[in-house]
């Protein structure tokens, strides 16, 4: 996905850009509203991450700009303010959602997914892997005539396996990516989800192989 990150704090911006590119996203960074307006005028983005407090004005005026310029890129506002003070204002002005600093990237991802799902209706995002069809946005897995809805963790696990197909992923790495940092989860918890995915994949030519003592691998 292509993100526009509007954030005046350069350290935070570069860290965020790094973190998003780790998941394979492309990120353009605008340090102020003027640059951000230039960017949205020339490139089309899947999502805008908009800091509300910026040196050359309130992020809300950018939301206004998008509306008047009829650019309907979804916007997730990033706010450092107290949640109590201005949530209503942000959503009223046309942001699709907002997230409070500092945020867990798994939460950001979940919010992006929810926003995109709301916007796109999840139509043309199916990805073909071997003889199965995987729709990340809708969270569905199809094989033949059958389509199953994946639970969020199943979906995230499958995403990880698909993005690293034919590569061994350690249990620790999987736990790290699948669970947010504020949860205490044993590595054995992964086995439950692996088991469920195997059930969903049963019959297809795609399979998950256990590499004893190391981790798992998706074989396509």
């Amino acid at each position, binding site marked *: 996905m292509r993100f526009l990150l509007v954030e005046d704090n350069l350290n935070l911006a570069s860290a965020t850009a790094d973190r998003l590119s780790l998941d394979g996203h492309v990120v353009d960074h605008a340090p102020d509203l003027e640059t951000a307006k230039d960017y949205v005028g020339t490139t089309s983005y899947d999502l805008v991450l908009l800091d509300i407090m910026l040196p050359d004005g309130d992020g809300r005026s950018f939301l206004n700009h998008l509306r008047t310029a009829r650019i309907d890129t979804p916007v997730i506002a990033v706010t450092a*303010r107290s949640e*109590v*003070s201005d*949530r209503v204002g942000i959503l009223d002005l046309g942001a699709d959602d907002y997230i409070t600093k500092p945020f867990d990237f798994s939460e950001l991802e979940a919010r992006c997914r929810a926003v995109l799902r709301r916007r796109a209706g999840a139509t043309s995002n199916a990805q073909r892997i071997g003889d199965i069809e995987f729709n990340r946005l809708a969270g569905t897995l199809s094989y033949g005539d059958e389509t199953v809805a994946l639970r969020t963790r199943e979906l995230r696990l499958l995403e990880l396996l698909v993005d690293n197909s034919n590569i061994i992923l350690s249990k620790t790495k999987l736990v790290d990516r699948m669970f947010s940092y504020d949860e205490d989860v044993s590595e054995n918890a992964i086995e439950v989800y692996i088991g469920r995915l195997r059930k969903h994949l049963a019959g297809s030519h795609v399979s998950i192989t256990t590499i004893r003592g190391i981790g798992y691998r998706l074989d396509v």
Partner: protein
Amino acid sequence: MKGRALGSMRRQMIAQLVVGAALLAALLIFVFQDFARRFAEESQDNVLLASATSILENVSEDAGGLIVDIPYAALAMLGSVSDDRVFYRVDQGPTFVTGYDDLSVAETTTANDTSFVSSGFRGDQIRAVTTSRLLSLGGQTQRIRVTVAQTQDGLGDRLDELFRRAVLLGLGFFVLATGLSVWTATRVLRPMQELALSVSRRGPDELRPFERPVPTEMVPLISSLNGFIARLRRALDRSEDFITEAAHRVRTPLATVRTQAEVLSRRIERDENRQTLRKMIRAIDESSRAAGQLLDQAMVNLRTDALQPTQIDLNDCLQDVVTRLTPVAELRDIELTTTFADDCHVSVDPILIQNAVSNLLDNAIKYTSAESRVALSTSSDGDGVYLKISDEGPGFEAVDQPLTERFVRGSAGEGTVGSGLGLTIAAEVFEAHGGKMTLSNNTEGKGGCVDVYLPR
């Protein structure tokens, strides 16, 4: 908060004016009565003297003898005033001539030939005048004294009558003065009362200066009141700005550190390093959550102090929170279900209620088991609206009731990130709205349950 009341100013003012009027009325009665008595006595004396003088004028000498002819008018003028009895006597030198010989005679001299005496005579109070002149009788100069006396019943009656009038006059004056003082006190204090009323009618957030015209004496009061209002408004604005600024300053660097730590954890190959980094990230989360909730609490306090309720449908307000928290719930495959009853209109501050409910739901999502359910439902009756959040987590222990106190965390809190402020904030918000929040455990199955009541 109530100031110490020193009693009604109006009542005090009226009391003072009435006491003053009473004193003045008493003085008026006294002065009037004194004046009337003197006047009556003086006029009696004058008549007595005129009577005595006319008798004395008619005393003449005839061949060395004394002729006393009491003129009718001399006694008639006394009788015309009242029915008092009149006595007289005439003396030639030391010798009694005619009249009542037991009537006492005052000494008179050439220098002072008239003297008035009040005394008793035959059991009555009398007023007597003795006047004298020298008469040449047979070559000898003799002092002729005429004494006229009158009883004082008539004078007493007249004085009583005058006293009654004086009292009536005093009372009339008193009643009039009292009426006037009530009127004055009420009128003078009216601007004060109007001001007090308009101050008390103001909403807590209504921080406009007072501009209504007031009497000159009240101008300093109004200007210092306006000064207070301006300072209060500035202080409130400053606290709000401060909270916003503090939030920004604290949260942005925390976000940077956290993001960098996440990036680093993806690049680290050794598991034990990743574990360490995980712990770091959790510590960051804990501090940022605590900072966030402290700031939230400050903001909540500001808003509850100046509560601005609006009439809303609680269901819409809750739906917003649920929509917003759904992605977070989905991260743990938790289903957020809602059951809304009809007619959940309440007068509340929606932002505060959303914050409180968001805290409660956030808690429930955090503590409930993965892939379980968090249920939010509303119901309503004539009294108010009820809201219930139940989860399928470990529930609240009996000892967990003080969880609503600041920084207290339940036993379930071990192993999850939290600051212990969420329930406190929520409880405070509902209490500020006149509502109540109770924690309990589900009777069927496991899980905790939060019940909230909000009055209409």
